[in-house]
């Protein structure tokens, strides 16, 4: 199915003291007469049949807990985010799934959801998450600590809006300040993994991971016109992330992600209670909320409320 995206917006080009500078592609800048010029802009990205829905393409982004020497496709999937991108409107949504959510695992009874990657690889994990939110992902992307660090480094770092100062005595004892903070590859990894010192524990950690993902998208959106930026990003993804997509398909998706409007990104973390099952501490997820988030996001990549 062909998927199209369309946006038409107007931009007003302001002037300064009788001169306006207009950039032309790699040809330098050229002064022009002063004028207040209204410039119409048309944009769109066709992702072809990469999206199995009408306008929305869905990914499951997985951070594997694999340590050096371990197969990242057969260990626990500790960071789990179901992402929706609306290629028509430029909206995007992110549903964070706590890793200890106790759910049915295809072919393996019930267990913490992060174990699905261990039992059955990306497909099983995709199915387990898809069953929880009611929407099966089009693609599952898996990365590991070092690769994630490399990917963030390859785009020059990111900025996140941290709502509260916190530190994790094991992960990052020096702590993170509140407010807009700039993260490198290493500190982004620490920010995504830190849990101690967060009042909401793993739920807050998942929300921080959503902030990381939003920061990555914003960085891509802001720098998409820098020469080589998108291409280098795609190359980094090819080197640091497991996916079945061809480079040309990744290139298309990268441009679709770059076109997301950061102001149209919504995210929620599936909340839940705690229980001990089979001697293990688990989260009993709010499945009704998970399904509601999935229903909200499936058609327009927008979650109305958490």
């Amino acid at each position, binding site marked *: 199915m062909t998927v199209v995206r369309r946006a038409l917006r107007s931009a007003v080009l302001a002037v300064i003291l009788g001169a306006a500078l207009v950039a*032309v592609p790699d040809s330098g800048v050229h002064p022009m007469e002063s004028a207040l010029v209204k410039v119409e802009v048309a944009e769109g990205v*066709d992702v072809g049949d990469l999206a199995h829905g009408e306008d929305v393409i869905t990914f499951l982004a997985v951070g594997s807990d694999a340590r050096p020497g371990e197969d990242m496709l057969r260990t626990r999937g500790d960071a789990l985010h179901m992402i929706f991108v609306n290629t028509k409107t430029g909206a995007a949504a992110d549903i964070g799934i706590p890793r200890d959510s106790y759910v049915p695992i295809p072919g393996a009874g019930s267990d913490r959801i992060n174990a699905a990657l261990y039992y059955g690889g990306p497909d099983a994990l995709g199915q387990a998450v898809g069953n929880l939110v009611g929407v099966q992902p089009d693609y599952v992307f898996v990365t590991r600590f070092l690769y994630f660090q490399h990917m963030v480094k390859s785009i020059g770092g990111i900025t996140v809006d941290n709502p509260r100062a916190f530190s994790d005595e094991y992960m990052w004892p020096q702590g993170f300040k509140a407010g807009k903070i700039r993260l490198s590859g290493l500190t982004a990894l620490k920010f995504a993994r830190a849990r101690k010192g967060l009042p909401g524990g793993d739920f807050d950690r998942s929300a921080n991971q959503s902030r990381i993902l939003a920061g990555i998208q914003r960085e891509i959106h802001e720098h998409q016109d820098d020469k080589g930026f*998108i*291409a280098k990003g795609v190359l980094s993804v090819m080197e640091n992330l497991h996916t079945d997509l061809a480079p040309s398909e990744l290139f*298309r998706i990268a441009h*679709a992600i770059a076109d997301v409007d950061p102001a149209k990104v919504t995210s929620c973390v599936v909340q839940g209670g705690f229980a001990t099952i089979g001697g293990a501490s688990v989260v009993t997820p709010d499945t009704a909320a998970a399904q509601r988030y999935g229903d909200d996001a499936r058609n327009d990549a927008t979650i109305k409320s958490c």
Partner: protein
Amino acid sequence: MRTKAKVIEITGDLSKNERQRVVKGVTRVVDGWWDAAYLSRADNPFPGFTPGAAKLARGDADIMTGRGLLDDADVAATRRRVTLDVLAAKKRAVGVTAGVLLVLEAGDDAKRYVVRGTVELERDKAEWRIFGYRISAGPEPAAPDRDKKNDNQDDEKNKARPSKEDKS
């Protein structure tokens, strides 16, 4: 008027021959769009677009063609530039983000219109196709000598540059 095209960035490895093929292939597609959409009244203003992108562009015809800009005036291109930012995998170009600039003069009073932005292309077998775009279009105050002066300056600059960039 011939389009000036050059590679400004390559991510990955490409041979010189492959680079030249990419430049020619992408330029052909961009030229096809410009000639059909702005310099003629072709039935299909978007040759070389994917079906989905063509559908999209038809909805943005006021910008993506000369329809909204130029009425029925005689139109000539005074500047045609394409820059290529190439993604290569296994020594083969798989994606291009092309910066585009088309300057048009229309009517007896030589009003100038500028079409600029980027188009994104992928290779489908041997042919390149446009799957995405971010294009602005609008009038620009006339400055008759600017193009000629700037083209000459760019040519001088390009002569001085090392041969990493490929020009056609």
